[in-house]
C-alpha cells in the first residue's frame, strides 16, 4: 500500500457480512463505523465498496463525477436533483434511507465556516509600507 494509506482502498463491500451474505443492516452499520472511524486504534479493516443498480442508458451518459452524499454536484445545484446518482433521484432517495447515505459528511470544517475563519491558517498581514515609498500613485 502507499505510504500514508489509512483506509478505504480495499475490495470489500459494505453490505457484505462476515458469513458471506449481503444485507442492508450490515451495510448501514459498516458505513456508520467507517464514517465515525471506530476501532481506529486496532487493526479493524473497514470495507470500501458500494454497489448501485444502473441502466445502460444512464451509464453511457454519466458524468465523470457522481455524488453519493446529500451534497449536490455543481451542475445539479440549479435543478436541485440528483441526476448523476447511479439510477437517478429515486434510487438516491431509496439508498439514502436504506444505507444512511445522508450521514456522509463533506470533510468540511463546520466550526471554521460558521465563524468565517477562512484565512485561519495564514500569517497575519503587516499592513505596513516600505520606508522607501516613492511611488507617485500613493501620494
Amino acid at each position, binding site marked *: 500500500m502507499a505510504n500514508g494509506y489509512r483506509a478505504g482502498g480495499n*475490495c470489500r463491500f459494505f453490505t457484505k457480512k462476515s458469513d458471506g451474505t449481503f444485507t442492508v443492516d450490515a451495510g448501514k452499520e459498516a458505513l456508520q463505523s467507517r464514517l465515525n472511524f471506530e476501532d481506529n486504534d486496532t487493526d479493524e479493516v473497514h470495507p470500501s465498496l458500494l454497489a448501485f*443498480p444502473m*441502466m*445502460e442508458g444512464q451509464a453511457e451518459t454519466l458524468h465523470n463525477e457522481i455524488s453519493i452524499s446529500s451534497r449536490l454536484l455543481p451542475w445539479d445545484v440549479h435543478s436541485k436533483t440528483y441526476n448523476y446518482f447511479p*439510477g*437517478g433521484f429515486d434510487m438516491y432517495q431509496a439508498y439514502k434511507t436504506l444505507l444512511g447515505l445522508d450521514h456522509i459528511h463533506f470533510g468540511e470544517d463546520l466550526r471554521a465556516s460558521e465563524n468565517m475563519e477562512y484565512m485561519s491558517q495564514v500569517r497575519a498581514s503587516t499592513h505596513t509600507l516600505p520606508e522607501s515609498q516613492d511611488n507617485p*500613485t500613493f501620494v
Partner: protein
Amino acid sequence: MLQRFTQVGEYYTMARPPIPPKDKDATGFLDIMIYDEETDKHCRITWEQALKATVAGALTGTTDLVNGPSGAKVPLNTWIQTAEAMNHINKNGFKAGAFEEKDRVIFQTNASGVKKTSTTDVTAIAQLVTDMKADYSKMTATICIARPFIEHAMLSAVLTVSGQDTGATLFGPSDMQVSANTSVKTIEGCVSESASAALFPVCFQCGYLTPFCAHVPTATTRATSSRSSPSRRTCT
C-alpha cells in the same frame, strides 16, 4: 508542510463489453478487476457479487431507474430481472441452460424481510436469458461500483508559475497569502498591500494605472482586500 487526512473517491461501471465474446462458452465477461491497495493486488469483482451487494431486493418506495438523458425510466424489478439473466449467462456462458428458481441471487422481500418468490419473475428472467442469447444488446443492466472513502495522509504543496506572463507587479511590494478554504475544497490566494497590473490596466493616455487617472471610468474590479483605496489623482 501541511499534512492532512484526505479522502478521494472513484467509481467503476460494470457493463457488457462492447463486443460480445466470440467463445459461446466464455464466462466471467461481465466481471471486472480492480486494485486492492491493502493487499497490493488486483481483485476480481464478479457480476454476481456486485449484484448481491446492491441489496436491490430490499429497496422500497418509488424505485424507478433513470435510463438516459431523456428522463426515461425503467422499473427496478425490470433491472433485477435483467441483471439476474445476465448473471446466469455470465456464470454459464451463452450455452447456459434454462433459468430456474435456484439460479436467483436477488430476492425481493416484504416489510418483514421475508423473501417474496414469484414464478412470474422466474418465467420473465428465463425469457430474458433466451432473448439475450439471441440479441446481445438486450443486456442493458449495469452496476456502479463506488469506492468513496479512499483515505491517505497527504502533504499539501503549491506549485506556481512565475514571470511576467502571470501579470507583473508594477509598484510596491507584493504580499501573497495562500489559504485552504475547506468549504469549497480550493486553495485561495490573496494579494494585498499592492495592486497588480493584471487587475488595474494602464491608462493609454497618461500611463498611470486606471484607478488613479481621470481618463477612464472609475469602475474597477478589485478581487482582493487590499488596503484602503488611495485618493484619485488626475494626470492632466
